[in-house]
């Protein structure tokens, strides 16, 4: 007899209470049906607030659906055998103060496994995750990639037949992302199946099946290739030529016939609304899942010119005078060097990207340049002001969007923006104007009176961006601004960032998305606290070319990092 499907959903509907009293209930899932055969990997994708996490929680038996049938491993979900299902919640659910070993052993015991009785399994988990040697480190002090690996190990310590992984690759660099994917495959025994939610369609393309959710409804179910096919005949590319990459993309994004556009290597890539090329020199290109996603969720609304950027004064500062300069920046913690002698400069109107694996020293560099951390050596300037002597003046000149949402979750959107406006010295009508502009430009009107902590992730990121640009600063620092948000919001973000840079603002950005890195004017690759490469995206690709044909930026990234690691090991 064939094994029952590992998951079977039929007409599953779930409503949540509205955010306020008397507001209508929110329909989180609306008649979701699908089947997952044993041994398959299901990628769950969709924009923010699509219902992905609710769906995961129903599979894990944590939330009861209002209507419909849910069968997990052939039985109704009410009779779920929890030792057979490993659930990794978003963020991992680790105890930050406990060590790696304590976390792992705690979860093992919670799942009915005595670590002493199954030393092989524990040893195997340490080996596969690469956490051997870090057993006594508190999990809060691990790098993002390692933390996700540990969280996954904790979820699957009992070798479950069904693994539910909610956003395992959020905020993780491309190298670690590949390792995490590999890890999931290795941890899943033969015949186990995996459900993997993600906003990164690169990950999704590795799955056997995809489920695209939007507003609680299934918009696509099938193999990843099928999703890409949705954009077939509507995906075009052309040689970049001499144009600056981000100018070419920016011009395309505002055209009514274009769904989305981006850079891939030395070509511009665009998806159109009709099967008509955007111009005479465009050639038909092979669509990928990203393109299919964009087509499936396209609302037909044309991106208006960025109102956020329109308020920035046109700054025509001397491009020879750097807006941001790092001169031999170093930071040591005792005997540990987090950042070693990093130097670069960013001109006004330039977008400079810092790339590198988690824990490489990007954020430390960033924090020193924002004046959050005093350098142990070297110095930094922002808008011509030295951070060591004129920290407060330097801060007035910069807008900062931290990696982690750092606004006040208890306060409303309005109260948060009022506070930040006041903190930048805007008062009365100037503050009101700035707030109105940002709220309008980022589509936050509907959330004005909601608590910031209760917003969907993408909306929260929009609010954080809005707070960083309220005072139209000449220098903008964005630390992983698009981490965890879906491709459509990422497109919107970069549309704003490009427009702001075009008015003469210098932008320093960190990202783990290589297609975003392509959009930067220049990049610096940091690994193991040192700068290992600096240049335009094309130059970085060229650096890695010696190793393999025509590398993409991601391949270049991985090659450059591996070669430095090998050098360090030798």
């Amino acid at each position, binding site marked *: 007899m064939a094994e029952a499907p590992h998951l079977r959903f039929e007409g599953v509907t779930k409503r949540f209470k509205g955010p306020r009293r008397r507001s209508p209930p929110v329909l989180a899932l609306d008649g979701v049906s699908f089947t997952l055969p044993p041994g398959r990997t299901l990628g769950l994708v969709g924009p923010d607030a699509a219902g992905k996490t609710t769906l995961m929680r129903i599979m894990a038996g944590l939330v009861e659906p209002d209507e419909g049938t849910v069968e997990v491993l052939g039985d109704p979900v009410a009779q779920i055998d929890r030792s057979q299902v490993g659930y990794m919640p978003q963020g991992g659910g680790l105890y930050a103060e406990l060590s790696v070993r304590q976390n792992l052993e705690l979860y093992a015991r919670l799942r009915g496994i005595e670590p002493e009785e199954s030393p092989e399994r524990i040893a195997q988990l340490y080996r596969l995750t690469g956490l051997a040697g870090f057993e006594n480190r508190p999990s809060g002090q691990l790098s993002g990639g390692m933390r996700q690996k540990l969280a996954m190990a904790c979820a699957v310590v009992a070798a479950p037949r069904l693994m539910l992984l909610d956003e395992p690759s959020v905020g993780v660099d491309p190298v670690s992302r590949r390792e995490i994917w590999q890890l999931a495959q290795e941890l899943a025994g033969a015949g186990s199946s995996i459900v993997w939610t993600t906003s990164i369609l690169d990950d999704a393309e590795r799955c056997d099946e995809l489920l695209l959710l939007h507003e609680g409804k299934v918009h696509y179910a099938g193999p990843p290739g099928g999703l890409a096919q949705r954009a077939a005949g509507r995906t075009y590319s052309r040689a970049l030529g001499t144009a600056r990459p981000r100018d070419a993309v920016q011009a395309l994004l505002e055209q009514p016939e274009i769904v989305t556009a981006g850079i891939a290597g030395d070509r511009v890539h665009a998806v159109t609304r009709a099967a008509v090329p955007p111009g005479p020199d465009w050639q038909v290109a092979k669509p990928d899942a990203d393109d299919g996603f964009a087509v499936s969720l396209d609302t037909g609304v044309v991106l208006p010119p960025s109102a956020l950027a329109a308020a920035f004064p046109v700054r025509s500062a001397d491009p020879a005078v750097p807006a941001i300069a790092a001169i031999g920046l170093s930071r040591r913690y005792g005997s540990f060097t987090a950042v070693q002698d990093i130097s670069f400069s960013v001109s006004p109107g330039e977008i400079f990207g810092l790339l590198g694996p988690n824990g490489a020293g990007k954020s430390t560099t960033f*924090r020193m340049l*924002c*004046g*959050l951390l*005093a350098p142990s050596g070297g110095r930094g300037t922002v808008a011509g002001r030295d951070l060591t002597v004129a920290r*407060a*003046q330097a*801060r*007035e000149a*910069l807008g*900062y969007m*931290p990696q*982690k949402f*750092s*606004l*006040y*979750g*208890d*306060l409303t959107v309005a*109260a948060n923006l*009022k*506070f*930040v*406006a*006041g*903190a*930048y*010295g*805007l*008062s009365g009508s100037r503050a009101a104007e700035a707030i109105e502009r940002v709220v309008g430009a980022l589509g936050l009107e509907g959330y004005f009176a909601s608590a910031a902590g209760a917003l969907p992730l993408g909306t929260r990121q929009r609010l954080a961006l809005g707070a960083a640009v309220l005072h139209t600063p000449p220098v903008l*620092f964005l630390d992983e601004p698009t981490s965890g948000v879906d491709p459509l919001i990422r497109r919107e973000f970069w549309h704003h960032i490009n427009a702001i840079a075009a008015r003469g603002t210098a932008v320093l950005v960190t990202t783990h998305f290589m297609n975003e890195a392509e959009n930067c004017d220049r990049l610096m690759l940091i690994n193991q606290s040192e700068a290992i490469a600096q240049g335009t995206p094309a130059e970085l690709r060229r650096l890695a070319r010696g190793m393999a044909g025509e590398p993409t930026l991601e391949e270049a990234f991985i090659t450059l990092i591996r070669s430095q690691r090998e050098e360090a090991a030798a």
Partner: protein
Amino acid sequence: MRGAWTRIIAMALKELKVVLLDRRVLTTLVASPIIQLILFGFATTLEVRNIDIGVVNRDIGVASEQFLAAMAGNRNMREIRFYPSEAALRDAIEEREVIAGLLIPPDLSAHYARRETAEMGLLLDGRRINAAQIVAGYMADIAHEAGGRMRPELAHPEPEVVARHWYNPNLEYRWFTLPGMITLITTVIVLSVSVQAIAREREFGTYDELMALPMRHWEILAGKCVPAFCVGLFNGMLYVVMIPLVSDVPFNGSLLLMLPAIAAFSLAITGIGLAISTVSQNQQQAFLGGFLVIVPLMLLSGYASPVDGMPGWLQVVAGIDPLSHMLTISHALFLKGLPASAILPQIAPIMAVALAALALALGLMRLRHD
């Protein structure tokens, strides 16, 4: 300078919203002080009432009868229990059935009859030292009174001291405790709000964003003072108004003097709370830090035990404690109605503590940053 004002006001408004939005915090801030005022005001009294006393009476004469009658008539006495032997009495004290035991010797009446000085034994429960001492005082009074009645010719052989208690003519304990409660409860509430101010930001990870804003440390601190200060001022003044309304304690002083005193006091406690908050990583640590200072602050204030009874060096330390000055001011204004010339010298040291604590908080904040 206008920029600084804008930033401080933004900070203050944000802090007020954070405190006022949390419904639980709000309940704690408004309802609990009132409940505390009522409960503590009536519970903390040094008068000992409802005394149970054990008696082993070996005398069968008139003297013991007279004495026991006088004892039974005392308003603080609840029950007199008789025990057959000293051993039984010892057990009763041991079991806390009675707080004191009276041993009446067999020859009491005989001594009385012979017009000699008679003696009785009094056993006291030393574990309850305060109450026991007070009971001993009552017993001495009763003995004196009963003796006088039995032998009027011996009563008051020397001039009697006639005590008149100024400012509290009937020696009502409430008159001491209720004005004192203003100081204690304001301290607890203000401290619990102010210790959270910076620790909360650290715990929620919002401190980074704050440090990236162009705010000077002193501006952040100034803004963060506002909620705790307002809560202290509001609660303190609420008590001043409430106490004469709900009890018979009069308010003889000037509200215009009480207001600056409470303001200075709230600022001092806010400063102490903020200094603790700057060194706390999370709200839990902040609360523990608050407890760490609140107990010595209260013990040294003179509310529980008089400052005059402390060793000299400790009296100097108590002189720094803002609670001791606030307690003095509160009693002076409620019961005596003293003028500004007497109150201002008490406000000055409170202000000095406020400035020192805020300077310390600022210094710690700068130190922690680098």
